[in-house]
Structure formats: structure tokens, C-alpha cells
């Protein structure tokens, strides 16, 4: 491997370290690598050593990093909770709206007829999905579609 490629390899690997580490050791580490390569140490083993060192540097827990990790975890948790709540809040009115649309477009008689005919050729199942219930929230039963029974035979 020629000198320029070796230097580029070491530079690339040194960029894997945290900025704080690079500010403190970066120049010296590059010089040390050059000296070791001059002494006959394979560039690949130096790069590998720095790569392993960079991984250790990122994975070693420090107080500041631990706090920032906790902050990130809390933000992610709060964000996902907020998103879930938002989805639930937006889903309930939409379902209610779709129910009322079906009811207005289909007369009660036709609806019950089509439902009955749909069930007639399809045997009832104990495990019929009750997708229109939100049991966890304790919501009342919301009928999604009356034209079919929501399951393929």
C-alpha cells in the first residue's frame, strides 16, 4: 500500500473517534501511525487497532454520555407516546364518520339483508375477528362496515 493510501486509511479510521478524542489525540495519533508504519508495522493492523479503539471510545459509558443517552431515550419514549395518543385520537372520529356514512347510504332493511346473505354462505366462526372493538380502551363497539362482515370465507 503506498504512503498516500495508507495515510488516507488512517485518517478515515481516526474520523471514527468522537470529536473530543480527535481534538485531544488526533494529530499525535496520525503521527504515531506514520512512525509505526515507517518501522514496519502493517498499516492494516494499525487501522484495525484504531478502529477497535474508536468502538471502545463510543461504547465506554461516561457520565455526560450516559445523561445524554438517557435524555434521548426519554425523548424517544415521550415522542412515541405522543404519536400513539395522536393516532388513537384521530382514529376514533374517522371510524365514527365511516360508520355514519354507511348507515346513511344503506337502508336498514338492505343492510340487514346483505349482512344476512353474506353470513348465509359462510359458517359462523368462534374466532371471528372483532376488529371493530377497541377493548384496551374500553370503547363501545363501533361497526365499521355493514355491507360485508369483514372477513373472507
Amino acid at each position: 500500500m503506498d504512503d498516500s493510501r495508507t495515510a488516507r486509511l488512517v485518517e478515515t479510521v481516526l474520523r471514527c473517534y468522537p470529536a473530543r478524542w480527535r481534538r485531544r489525540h488526533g494529530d499525535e495519533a496520525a503521527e504515531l501511525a506514520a512512525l509505526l508504519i515507517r518501522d514496519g508495522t502493517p498499516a492494516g493492523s494499525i487501522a484495525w487497532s484504531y478502529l477497535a479503539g474508536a468502538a471502545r471510545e463510543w461504547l465506554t459509558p461516561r457520565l455526560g454520555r450516559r445523561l445524554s443517552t438517557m435524555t434521548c431515550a426519554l425523548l424517544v419514549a415521550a415522542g412515541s407516546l405522543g404519536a400513539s395518543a395522536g393516532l388513537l385520537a384521530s382514529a376514533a372520529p374517522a371510524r365514527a364518520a365511516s360508520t355514519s356514512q354507511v348507515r346513511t347510504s344503506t337502508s336498514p332493511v338492505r343492510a340487514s339483508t346483505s349482512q344476512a346473505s353474506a353470513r348465509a354462505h359462510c359458517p359462523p366462526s368462534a374466532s371471528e375477528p372483532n376488529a371493530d372493538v377497541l377493548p384496551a380502551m374500553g370503547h363501545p363497539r363501533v361497526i365499521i362496515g355493514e355491507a360485508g362482515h369483514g372477513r373472507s370465507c
Partner: protein
Amino acid sequence: MGRWDGRSGQDVLRRVGEASVLILISLADGPKHGYALIQDIKELSDVQLGPGTLYGALDRLERLGLIESLPADDRRHPYRITAPGAAALRAHLDSLERVSAAGRLRLQLGGI
């Protein structure tokens, strides 16, 4: 792990790894920078420390207060062993000596 003041007498180096012990031994006779440390350690123990391992160990030892960085000479930072570092090294070497003596004695008793 916080700074070690060297007063407890416990072997703080038991958990820091071989590289850290070798660095302290190398620094025991005077300050050295990274390249000189690698050369010296290779000479005294036939162990070639990788540069990544070296800097990791130097940072750990400095955090523990066992070594300190001296003002940079060009781009190189020399490191010096501190008084707690010397005490920790002494305690560790004493502990190794005790273990080594016990091991030799048992080998004798076992007739191996």
C-alpha cells in the same frame, strides 16, 4: 470509576488490564509520549501495543488520576506517572509477587 487517591491500599490495577499496567511500568522511570511508550513496552515485555489500545489505556489511567499529561512537545503529549499511580503500581506488583510466590510453592508441593 473516579480518581484513585492511593490511600486505600487496594489493588486498583487488577481490573484495568495488562496494557495499563505495562504503561505504568514504562512510565515509572520517567515521562514518555505514545511512540516511546510503544517502543519501551515492546522492549521490556515483548508486547506490541496497538495505538488504539494505547490511547484507550492512557485515557483510562488519566481519568483514574494515575498518570498526567504534560504540556505538548510539538504534537506529542508526554505522560508522567503520578504519586497515586506509583502507589497503585507498587500495590499491584506486590499482589502479583504474592500470587506468583503462592503459585511456585504449590507447584513445588504438587511435585509437578
